[in-house]
């Protein structure tokens, strides 16, 4: 889990044009795209967004395995949307499945919803995978997000790595002592693991928190983003043009 996060940050720090774009531009662009995706109510708009995001991920050299892993959750919900709408939304009945009638109109609405879910998922993935958390936090502060919220976000993120390190160490030790040899033994071990993990990470956190305070480190997010450069302006313009084109599509294109 946290290994994956580390990979994300590893990619986000990499030398790709997507990672170099100012996070403020990305946040503004992503917000616009999410709004258009949700409000347009059009197959075409969601389809174009999904395609554009997929191309962007390929162009940005985001690893394919990572792309597939991240889109797995929205994809399961896309399936859920098709099933639920085919059953619950009226229209012409084209088949029956036990006590449920399957509706053609509902099926097509489900397809649209699934496209919207996939497009929305891809938009968020592009932002998450290409932006390191500290730059994201700085950008959120620039957009006036509450400092306490940002601080909790950074603390949570930091502790994820501590939990991962301690968890691996303790579970290996338990396995070596046959702590998971039966279901009953496993249950007792999992409770012990949960409690011990909590206390060990807590104590480690207390020590580093004290050390940070002694060094004069403040709680509020430090640093500032540099002024937007040529790449950021170009990216902002490209997103604005793309959003304009999508809006025209939504207004004049097929529903």
């Amino acid at each position: 889990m946290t290994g994956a996060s580390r990979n994300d940050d590893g990619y986000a720090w990499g030398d790709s044009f997507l990672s170099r774009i100012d996070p403020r531009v990305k946040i503004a662009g992503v917000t616009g795209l999410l709004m258009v995706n949700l409000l347009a109510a059009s197959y075409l708009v969601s389809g174009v967004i999904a395609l554009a995001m997929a191309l962007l991920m390929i162009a940005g050299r985001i690893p394919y395995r990572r792309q597939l892993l991240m889109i797995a959750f929205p994809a399961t919900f896309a399936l859920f949307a098709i099933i639920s709408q085919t059953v619950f939304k009226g229209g012409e009945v084209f088949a029956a499945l036990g006590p449920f009638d399957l509706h053609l109109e509902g099926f097509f609405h489900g397809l649209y919803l699934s496209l919207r879910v996939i497009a929305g998922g891809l938009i968020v993935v592009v932002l998450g995978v290409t932006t390191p958390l500290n730059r994201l936090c700085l950008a959120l502060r620039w957009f006036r997000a509450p400092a306490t919220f940002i601080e909790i976000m950074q603390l949570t993120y930091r502790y994820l790595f501590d939990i991962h390190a301690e968890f691996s160490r303790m579970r290996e030790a338990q396995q070596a002592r046959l702590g998971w040899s039966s279901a009953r033994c496993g249950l007792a071990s999992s409770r012990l693991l949960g409690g011990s993990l909590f206390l060990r990470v807590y104590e480690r956190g207390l020590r580093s928190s004290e050390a940070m305070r002694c060094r004069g480190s403040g709680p509020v997010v430090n640093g500032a983003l540099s002024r937007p450069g040529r790449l950021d302006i170009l990216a902002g313009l490209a997103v604005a043009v793309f959003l304009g084109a999508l809006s025209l599509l939504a207004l004049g294109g097929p529903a």
Partner: protein
Amino acid sequence: MHIPEGLIPAQQAAAWYAPAAAFVGAGLVGLKRRLAIQPSARPLIGLLGAFVFVISLMPIPVPGLGTVSHPCGTPMAAILLGPLTATVLGSVALLLQALFFAHGGITSWGANIISMAVGGSFAGFAAFRISRRAGLGLGISAGMAGFIGDLVTYGLTSLQLALALHGDEPVSYVWGAAFASFLPTQVPLAIAEALFTAGVVVFIANQRAEILEGVVVRP
């Protein structure tokens, strides 16, 4: 289960955002005050935020429904830090999961906060308090919190899905169907969450009781 980006309509997404913002705002005010008085609370808060993140990122497939369910973690955070702070931790965990795993979403963030962060925290906390007032032991009360908090979260998520996807059927019918579909995986998960919450809280009480000092553990 987190509702993904794009599934719920814009009006409903906005409607869920409003109460979520109120709860998170109130939690942030309290948290800011707490951190100013007690800076040493930071490790506990960060740690519980990370616990909520990890616990609620264990997807278990729901047979026949094409989706996943998972434990919540917010009831345990509510017992140790209070429900409003747990709401903030839940919202942070949900945002990080949406960004790094596409597990949840940005426009559906408000709806997810209401079901997992607010519903799980407040229901779990209420179950804990009522159990303690009824004279039940610490472990059983914490277990009740985990069990009830988990089921309330899924009840709320099912309601949100029903409102968004009911089509031409009554919302109550779709709500019932969605909740019933989750039950085969959710009841065992709620029991597992109850055992885990009870185990961790009792372990902390036995090993480091000072963490629970001044916290709402005593009846």
